[in-house]
Structures are given as C-alpha cells and as structure tokens.
C-alpha cells in the first residue's frame, strides 16, 4: 500500500509552487495574426512588470441552445506566446545593415537616424523612379489594427501596396468563379449542425485547433466525418472514412459523385433551378450562353434565358431575383431559337451539357483509374451527400494547385446538386475577416470624432444607392463590389502583385516554361499575358508595374523570403539588386530581416494596445491591452509610423521635395503628414487610436452602440451586431442572430437574392473565350502539370501545426514540442529505395534548386508523395535554403482573364495567385 497522507500539512516546497502561480496584473490578450479564425480571448498574467504567462479567457457564452459553446479558444502557439516576448529572436533596437546584405553585420542606430534614413530612401526612390517604385508588401503578418493602419498609410503615400490575398495565396479561385465571392465563413459552432463533414483539402487538426472540437462533437452527435486526402493526414485520425485519393484528382472524384446523383435522380431539382445557372440556355453552335444581344439585338450581354416547361417558350431569366416566378425552367431539353439576325440555333440548358459530360467522362468506373477511388466508395459518398446536411471543411490547399480552380468548381457542383449551401450545417467553408470597420475608417477620415465617420460612410452609401437606382436589378451586395472595384482602381489602395512578379522578380521565364504549364494551352503564356494587358482587363495595373523599377520595399510583420514561392531563388537574384532600401518591421529577426537594410523593432502582442482580426467564425471583436513595456527600444507600429511620417515631413522640407501625386491625382499630404494621420495629434497615442476605432465600429454598426475602450477593458470582447460595410462581411449574406449559429448565404437561399456573378446565379458554366479555348467552361478534371521538371515525386504541403506562418517555428518552447528541426514526411517504400532511414538528411532537388531536410518515416504518406508543412524559416535549413526554393511559383494563365462579369479584379479577390502544390522533384540521401 502507498504511504498515504504521510505528510499532510504541506512542506515548504508546496509553497514554492503556490508562489510560482501568482501574479500582480491581469490584462486582456490576443494574437493579432492571421491564423484562422484567430481572435481567441486570452488573459495575460504579469508579475513585477514582466509578462509571465497567458491563459485562455474562455468567456464566450452559449450562442444557440443545444449547441456546444466555443470555449476555451486557443492553441499551443497562443499558450506560449508570452515566452516569445522574451525569446532570443527579439529585435530590441533599430538595426542598420553594416556589411553586405545577408552577411549578418549590424549597427545599432537611434530611432531618429533610422527614420531619417528611411524617409530619405523613400524620397530618393520617388525622385528616381516615381512613387510607383515604392512597394509595401501586403501581408496580414502580425499586427491587426496597427498593421492595417500601416498599409493604409503606405497607400496614402502612393506606394504600391501588393494585394495580400495573392501574397499569402489563401484564395479559392474556384469558389470565386462559381459564386463571385470566395469567402463564405460559417460560424465554428455551425459545424455542430452538420450531418456529414467532408474534410477535403484541409487539415483542421493542425490549422483549426481552436475549434476542431465541433467536428468531433458533430460526429458524436450522429454525424459522420470523411477525410479525403492522399495521405492519412492528421485530420483523418478522427474520421469515420479516409478516402486515399491520388494527388490532384479531386475534380474527377467530385464529378463522379455528381454523375451518380444525377444518374440516380437524387439531386435537388428545386434548389438548382433557383440557385444555379444549370437551367440557363447555351447555344449549341458556339457554346456561349444565349444572350439578349443574340435574341433581340439589344446589345445586352448579361441577360440570359431559360426554357419554360409550361409554355415551351424561351424566357429571360430574371436578374433581380432568383425566384423563377410563374416559370418552371426546364433542366433537360432542347429548343431552337431564331436569333435577331434570322439564324436559327439549337439551345440546351447547362444541365444537359453537364450531364452529357459527366456520363461520357466521369462515371465512378471511369474515374477510378485517375483518382484511385473504388466506384463503391464514390457511390456510397455521393448518396450520403445527397441525403444529409453536408459541409465541406476546406481550407486553402485546393487553391494552391495549378488546377485548383477546377477542383473547387467541381466540389461546389456536388454541393449545389444536392442543395447543400445556405442552410445550417451545410456549404463550403472559407475565411473572412472584418466586423471592425473602425479599423479602416479611422485613417481615411479627415478629422477625429463621429461626424466625419458618418459623413464618409454616408457618401459611400449614397454612391451605392445611386448605382442601385440606375439598375434596379442590382443588389446592394453587387453594388458594393462594383463600388469597391472602382475605388481600388481609382485610389490604388492595393494592387495585384502578379505584374510585379512578372516584370521585376524574374517570373516571366518560369511562367513561360511549356512543361510547367497545362499542355492543353493553345498559345504561349506570354501571348495570353499580353492579350490580358492589351484588352485592359487589369485597368492599367499591368502598365504601372512595368513603368518603373522597384526602389524601396517595406514589410511589416511579414516574411517575403520565406513566403514567396520561389523564395530567395527568385527574389535575391532578380528583385534585390533593384532595391535601394529594404525595411523589415517586426518584433523578431526573420529571414527577410536578415537580408534587409533596416530592421525596426516592433512591440510584441502584449506590449501595445491593439485589436486582432475578427471573423464570422465566432463573431466577436476583441481588445488587446498593454501588459508590460516592450524591451529595449521596441515601439508599437503606430508610433513607428508616426516617426517615419515626421521624418518625411522634415526631410522633404529640408530637401525641397514637392508632394507627388497618388494614383487618383491627389497630392500626398507631405507637408503636414503627421498632423494628417494623427488627426492633428488627437489619435497620436495608441489608446486614443484604439478607442476611436471601437467608437467608429460602433457608429458603423458592427458592434453595439455603447462600445468604447472602457467597455472593452471591462469585457474583453463584444459580439458583433452587424456586418458593417467591408466586402468580406457583406458577402456572408445572412442575418446575424443573437441565439443562432452563423451560416453564410441564407439570403440567397431563403431570400432568393441573386449572387454577384455574371449570370447572377451560382455559375458552373463560364463562357469566357479563354475558358472555352481551354475546355474549362465546365468543371473538368485536368492532370497536374509537371512544374519543377520531370521527376518522380510530388511535394505537397500545408499549413503547419507548430506555427502561424513562420512566427512560432523558432520559439524555444515550440521547438521543444517536436524534433526541433524541419522534416519531410515520406512513405517508407520511397525511403527504402533511396537508402533513407528515419531522420536521415536528404537532398531534395528539381530543375530549379536543391535543399536539405531530414526525412520522417511516415506510413500514412502516399507512395510518390512527400510532404513538407510550410512555415519553416529558411534560416532553419542549411545555407538558408528552404522548400520555397524548389517551388517554381507558377500561376495559372486563366487567372489573368478579365472583362467578364465577376471575372475582373477587385481587392483580395479575382487575380492570379501562386501555385505550390504537387511540385515535381526527387529526393536522394545527402
């Protein structure tokens, strides 16, 4: 027997443990990073002026009775972030490069010297090449409100602020192609309503640690979880079914399921008639939609038709509603139409073309050879999807495949055929941030206080209303996107970086390699690229990028040399020599900082007042308080911006440099820059700024009216009451209800409100000339091109468990939670033939580069596949050469298409994004 209660009254050592847990200050914390959803409320515990630890606040109440609550949102990165405040990687003082770039020689300088040097470099660049030579690389990075402000500040100075969506490439081109928006973001708790969750192109066990529990709770509650992935991924651990699909064949598999539901007649006829373009008529002679321009010669090329089953007549499909009214649109049939020019053509609904294609090419038996899925499995899953409330738990993996748009379009098709969106527990899952409109209004308005906030919003609303008056079929959502598109073109708030990469970062050569592209392309990459520019599809952006060489580059909380597909291989060779100054603003020294000219020390998460990104996933807006002083001379981003603003003001005056014009022709506010950004000093202090942001958000209707900094200090978080005006929120198109989980797109499904696409419907048929030329007017499967070269293995990757981007990989605590060095997952058979044992160092190589990494023995990895989860710092690898170097960084040519309804640029949306999945390479023992 154990010697129980031998010493019952605690010895002194008990007291030492009690003392270790004590604190003298508690503040609200969060991590202003773009993990998703982020916005986990934390409590930060400090002692003697130093942050000691944090713990989830776990303050979210039950939203919907009968649905589990969201507590205690957080993860291992968050639970150790306090320790990264004091890690050796912190940068404590402004550091100026003293040796060659990347040499590791630094000189500590004063803030004044740093700000003056940087201001001079900006002024030099403008004089040399014009303001379009100033680049702010747009990333969500680390920073929340303080970071967004910097992007706005740079935009106001006429910088090219690159579109972060293309930089981080968390875009879903196929969801966008289908719906005219890509960002349906259901509440995490809404997963509890799912009867079938398909984890497909996502790894939520790694990336959604904070709310994975809802999927398991739904499974306990009678739902099923199916993981569709080449590897037995960590997210297959808690799945009922793991479907081991061949890499990159998801469109074929999805189409086979669509074939099954159509053939078996288990599709949702009413849903597809109302919600999709499947009843719209297509001309058999040219495979274009039948348009009013054809029928009556009116010239309207956005009026489409369907065939009424009752009257057998061709009827214009209404644009202002999804309701068919008295019409019963035919899905299956043929008609002949006499066109305005007298020609008689055959027309058929998209549904017929789709069904014919599926029957011809995508029966479960036919696709088995392609995707390796047994026909029984395909039918079993198709029937389940048709019978159940189904959600695809997808991430941003599919969009990073060359033909990821096709995969996503096919995935949306099986959801559409089965009526699976716009209802609780259904739909596709993406991401969206917003709910904090003050984040944007506070810098754009001309003075502090509520009046200018309301006036600015009023002007915007008036413009949207006038658009809707001019076209009564236009919804408020479509009008907003149109307005945003115009604003971005006019103001240059952000710019798609594809043209910058093409002209200045050496990608032209890579993108033109025939073997790296779709072999079915009819013309060279450059011919398409040139056509897109000539046709003005990118409204001058292409020309601006070409006109001047980059001279100045700043990154705030980002890490370009880690993130860029192509990495140092492309950037150090092609871009770096053109740049006169590179500035990294961060709390730590990352790889980009190591190659920069200046590193400016930013305050860490708990060392400044801030707001994290907010999202529909939990619908809360949060506060981050300052728990302790930053070490060394680190400062908040807002204070650093002000330092640079003052220096620009001073140096331009001293040097006699006149204000230059921004894209819209307005001169930049050079002479009174500091006064302008701080609203005459009213918002100079961080607390004043954040208070104003909360007040503005309350005025603009995203959070309750009475919200102020004081109320946030008390409660830490507040649930949103409205979507506000940002596009990613407006796109949710559902009511926010106080006691219901959030499901996007209920307005479309319940309210029959049109979608923001060319056809105003979920659009599976794209009759853009390039799509027809490519044979991609419908969601087809195409094999992944051999980008990287002719090598037998394919590198897939994914967001890591251990880090948000590269921010936590180098935390001493996080390094202790695994091997502490980068690894590559590899099937034991592939290892054996190469003589590799677990943890051996391997040489990974293809046409472009080679790098070294340790291998991990992984029975769950598909033979022929290797997996390197991303986010490792290049400086964790020998010669600072990470996997980004073997990634070609291709873009799909079709994504330069424009001039077609929703297929045109708007910020954060339609544009070319880099591809990094299924890169061809080989591995050998090092």
């Amino acid at each position, binding site marked *: 027997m154990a010697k129980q209660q031998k010493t019952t009254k605690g010895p*002194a050592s008990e007291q030492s443990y009690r003392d270790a847990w004590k604190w003298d200050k508690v503040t609200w914390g969060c991590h202003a990073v773009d993990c998703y959803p982020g916005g986990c409320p934390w409590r930060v515990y400090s002692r003697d002026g130093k942050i000691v630890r944090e713990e989830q606040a776990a303050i979210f109440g039950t939203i919907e009775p009968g649905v589990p609550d969201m507590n*205690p949102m957080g993860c291992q990165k968050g639970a*150790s972030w306090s320790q990264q405040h004091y890690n050796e*990687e912190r940068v404590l003082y402004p550091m100026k490069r003293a040796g060659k770039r990347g040499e590791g020689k630094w000189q500590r300088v004063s803030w004044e010297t740093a700000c003056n040097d940087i201001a001079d470099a900006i002024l030099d660049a403008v004089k040399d090449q014009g303001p379009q030579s100033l680049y702010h690389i747009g990333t969500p990075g680390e920073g929340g409100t303080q970071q967004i402000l910097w992007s706005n500040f740079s935009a106001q100075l006429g910088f090219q602020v690159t579109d972060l969506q293309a930089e981080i490439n968390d875009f879903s081109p196929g969801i966008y192609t289908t719906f005219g928006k890509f960002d349906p973001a259901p509440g995490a708790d809404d997963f509890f309503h799912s009867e079938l969750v398909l984890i497909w192109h996502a790894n939520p066990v790694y990336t959604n640690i904070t709310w*994975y529990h809802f999927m398991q709770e739904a499974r306990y509650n009678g739902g099923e979880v199916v993981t569709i992935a080449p590897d037995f991924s960590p997210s297959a651990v808690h*799945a009922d079914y793991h479907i081991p699909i061949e890499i990159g064949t998801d469109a074929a598999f999805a189409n086979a399921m669509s074939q099954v539901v159509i053939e078996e007649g288990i599709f949702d006829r009413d849903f597809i008639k109302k919600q999709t373009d499947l009843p719209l008529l297509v001309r058999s002679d040219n495979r274009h939609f039948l348009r009013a321009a054809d029928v009556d010669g009116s010239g309207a090329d956005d009026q489409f038709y369907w065939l009424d089953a009752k009257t057998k007549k061709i009827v214009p499909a209404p644009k202002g509603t999804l309701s068919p009214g008295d019409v019963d649109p035919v899905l299956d049939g043929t008609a002949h139409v006499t066109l305005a020019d007298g020609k008689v053509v055959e027309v058929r609904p998209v549904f017929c073309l789709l069904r014919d294609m599926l029957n011809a090419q995508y029966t479960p038996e036919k696709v088995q050879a392609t995707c390796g899925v047994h026909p029984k499995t395909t039918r079993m899953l198709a029937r389940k999807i048709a019978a159940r409330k189904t959600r695809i738990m997808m991430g941003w993996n599919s969009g990073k495949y060359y033909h990821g748009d096709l995969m996503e379009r096919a995935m949306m098709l099986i959801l559409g055929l089965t009526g699976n969106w716009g209802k609780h527990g259904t739909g596709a899952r993406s991401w969206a941030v917003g709910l904090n409109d003050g984040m944007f209004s506070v810098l754009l308005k001309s003075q502090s206080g509520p009046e200018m906030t309301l006036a600015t919003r009023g002007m915007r609303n008036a413009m949207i209303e006038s658009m809707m008056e001019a076209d009564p079929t236009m919804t408020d959502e479509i009008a907003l996107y149109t307005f945003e598109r115009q604003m971005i073109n006019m103001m240059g708030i952000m710019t798609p970086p594809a043209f910058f990469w093409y002209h200045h970062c050496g990608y032209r050569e890579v993108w033109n390699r025939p073997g790296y592209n779709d072999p079915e392309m009819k013309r060279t990459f450059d011919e398409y690229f040139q056509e897109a520019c000539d046709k003005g599809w990118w409204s001058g952006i292409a020309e601006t990028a070409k006109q001047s060489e980059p001279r100045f580059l700043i990154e705030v909380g980002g890490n370009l040399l880690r993130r860029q597909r192509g990495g140092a291989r492309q950037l150090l060779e092609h871009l770096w020599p053109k740049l006169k100054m590179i500035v990294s603003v961060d709390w730590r020294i990352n790889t980009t900082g190591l190659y920069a000219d200046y590193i400016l020390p930013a305050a860490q998460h708990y060392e400044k007042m801030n707001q994290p990104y907010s999202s529909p996933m939990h619908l809360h807006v949060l506060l981050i308080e300052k728990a302790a002083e930053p070490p060394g001379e680190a400062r908040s981003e807002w204070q650093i911006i002000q330092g640079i603003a003052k220096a620009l003001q001073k140096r331009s005056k001293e040097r006699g440099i006149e204000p230059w014009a921004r894209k819209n022709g307005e001169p930049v506010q050079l002479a009174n820059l500091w006064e302008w950004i701080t609203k005459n000093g009213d918002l100079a202090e961080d607390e004043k700024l954040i208070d104003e942001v909360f007040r503005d958000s309350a005025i603009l209707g995203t959070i309750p009216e009475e919200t102020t900094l004081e109320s946030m200090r008390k409660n830490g978080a507040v649930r949103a009451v409205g979507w506000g005006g940002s596009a990613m929120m407006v796109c949710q198109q559902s009511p926010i209800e106080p006691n219901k989980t959030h499901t996007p797109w209920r307005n479309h499904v319940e309210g029959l409100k049109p979608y923001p696409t060319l056809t105003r419907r979920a659009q599976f048929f794209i009759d853009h000339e390039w799509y027809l030329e490519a044979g991609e007017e419908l969601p087809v499967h195409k094999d992944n091109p051999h980008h990287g070269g002719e090598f037998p293995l394919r590198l897939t990757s994914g967001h890591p468990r251990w880090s948000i981007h590269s921010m936590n990989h180098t935390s001493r605590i996080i390094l202790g939670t695994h091997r502490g060095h980068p690894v590559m997952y590899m099937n034991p058979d592939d290892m054996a033939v190469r003589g590799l044992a677990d943890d051996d160092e391997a040489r990974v190589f293809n046409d472009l580069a080679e790098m070294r990494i340790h291998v991990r023995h992984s029975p769950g990895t598909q033979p022929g596949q290797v997996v390197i989860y991303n986010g490792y710092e290049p400086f964790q690898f020998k010669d600072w050469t990470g996997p980004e170097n073997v990634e070609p960084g291709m873009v799909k040519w079709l994504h330069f298409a424009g001039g077609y309804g929703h297929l045109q640029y708007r910020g954060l949306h339609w544009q070319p994004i880099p591809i990094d999945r299924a890169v061809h390479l080989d591995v050998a023992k090092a």
Partner: protein
Amino acid sequence: MGRQIAMVFDLNKCIGCQTCSVACKVLWTNQDGRRDMWWCSVNTQPGRGTPRDYEKMGGGYDAGGSLILGDLPHPDDFGGASQFNWQAVHTSGNGGGHTHLQPTDRQPTWAMNWDEDQGAGEYPNAYYFYMPRICNFCSKPSCVDACPNGALYKHEEFGVSLRDDSKCQGAQQCARACPYKKIYFDAVSKTSRHCIGCFPRLEHGVAPACVRQCPGRAVFVGYRDDSASPIHRLVEEYKVALPLHPEWNTEPNVFYVPPLSAFMVAPDGSIDESQRRIPLSYLESLFGPGVGTALRTLEDEMAKRKRGQPSQLIDTLIAYQWQSLLGPFDRDPSAIQW
C-alpha cells in the same frame, strides 16, 4: 481518508496539438534545470513514446503486490533541446556563411514528440492517434513507496503525489519505480520532479492547466468519489474510460476514452466497414481487455444519436457547457485577487 481527484482524456477529441503540454511547461518547467521536462506530454500512438520505449522500462507492482524498480530512463531518452545558436544565425557577420539554426546544448536523437504523426500500418491502411500523459495520480503510487528518503506523499485533499523537495536527495528511485516514467531529474537542484496536478490551482477551485487550456475539450477533471460527476459516468457507469496499462498495478486515476478510427480499405480498394484501422489487440495492449466493450458501447450510443434517440453518454462526451469538463474546479483564475 483524503479525497482523490481523477481525470479522463477523451482520445476521440485529442488532436495532438500539445496545448496541454505547452500550458504546463510555461507554468511549471520553463526554467533552468527543468527545460527538458514535459510533465504533460502528448505522443502519437503507436509509437515509442516519452521517454523513448518507456513501456519496456518496468516499474509498478507485480501481481503479488511487490514493488518493481524498473530502469532509470537516460536523459537522451527524454531528449530534446532547449538552447539554440541564435547569435550565430542573426549577427555572426560571418561573411555570408549562413549558419542555420541548431541546438547548442544537445544534438538530439529523441524528443518529447519525436515520432509525431508516424504511427503504424501500411498505406493506405496507416493509422495513429494521440495520447496525452501526465502523472496518473495513482491510488497505489509506486513512486511514493520507492523513495528511500520519505520525500513523497499523497496530498490529503486531492490525492496527488507530491514531493517534499527538502527531503529529496535525488536518489531517483521514484523514477525507477514509476512504470509510466513521468518523473524527471532536475540537474540544477539535484532533485526529481513531476506533475503536481496543479494543486495550487485546485486549492483555488481552478482546474489544472492541461484541463482548462485544452482547446479540444478533451479532458475532464473531478473527484473520484463524486457519483454525480461526468468522470463517474464515464469510468464507472458506462465503462468507456479505462486506465493505461492497468497491469502495472498502481491503480491510476487518469483514464482514457479509447479512439475509434477510420474503416479499413479492402484489398480491392473499397471500404470495409466491418473493420476499423486500429487493431483491437493494440488498444488492448494499452488499456486492457475492457477496451473492446468500451468501443462497442461508444458505437452503440453514437448510433442512437444517428437515429435521433437520446444518449446520456454522448451528451456527457459532447460537453455542451465547457465548464462541465472542469467539475468543481470551474473558477476563472483571472478573478483571483492575491
């Protein structure tokens, strides 16, 4: 008699994120002498575990109740590294040599979670799951029995095994006797250390860090003798929560809901719904012969929910209210005024 706390880890909810182990580390072992310690650790199973191959090291009691002193784990079996060459990477000025980040205290061949996501099986029928381990708060703690200096004792109110540091001479007999090998040696203080069940938190009605900070909502805590608690329901009534290696005879008070797993892929590539991927024999080797019944109970109760019927067991496991996981220890620590 004092009271005994108990915990249940639901392995169907554990996602191997290590938030529990990181929360524990930041609170208790993030200091010199303790940096290589992970009082709470999570491992991929099947696997060699923490410390490496601990299941082969011995300890506990034999069938006759005699104490077994097993092997003492070597520091390299715990492994890991905690010091890195930051200076060389960041500011070496070494002429572009580009020194990469490496440990300076040890070149590890093992670490707490070294065989992460490896598991077993052959593609496509690979399988694994995650298992957190802390002190088992044993009713028959072999560590307490084994200490030659009488330094270890069971805490009256919570039944956690604690060590009087002033009496500990660093003999490490406790580490030899603990069959779970959850006892570490602090080379700075020359004393042994292990999970203390966060007793200072329990004293204030706050759940242990590994429980309260688990984002997977996978851990229950409460008193073993509370017949109204979720723990009682899971362990005693439904018998779906089982101790790890009961054959080591220390009577652990930490229990595990065993993992269900994906169905097998048949040789023809179709899915065989009659077989799950994790072999029952493997789960029995961990949790004893009751695991098959436990899994059937889980499946039966989940099937009830699929048919729309109520299930008390499933409602317990879902834990609609997060606080229900915390039992009587549901106080918000930020409310404490020192």
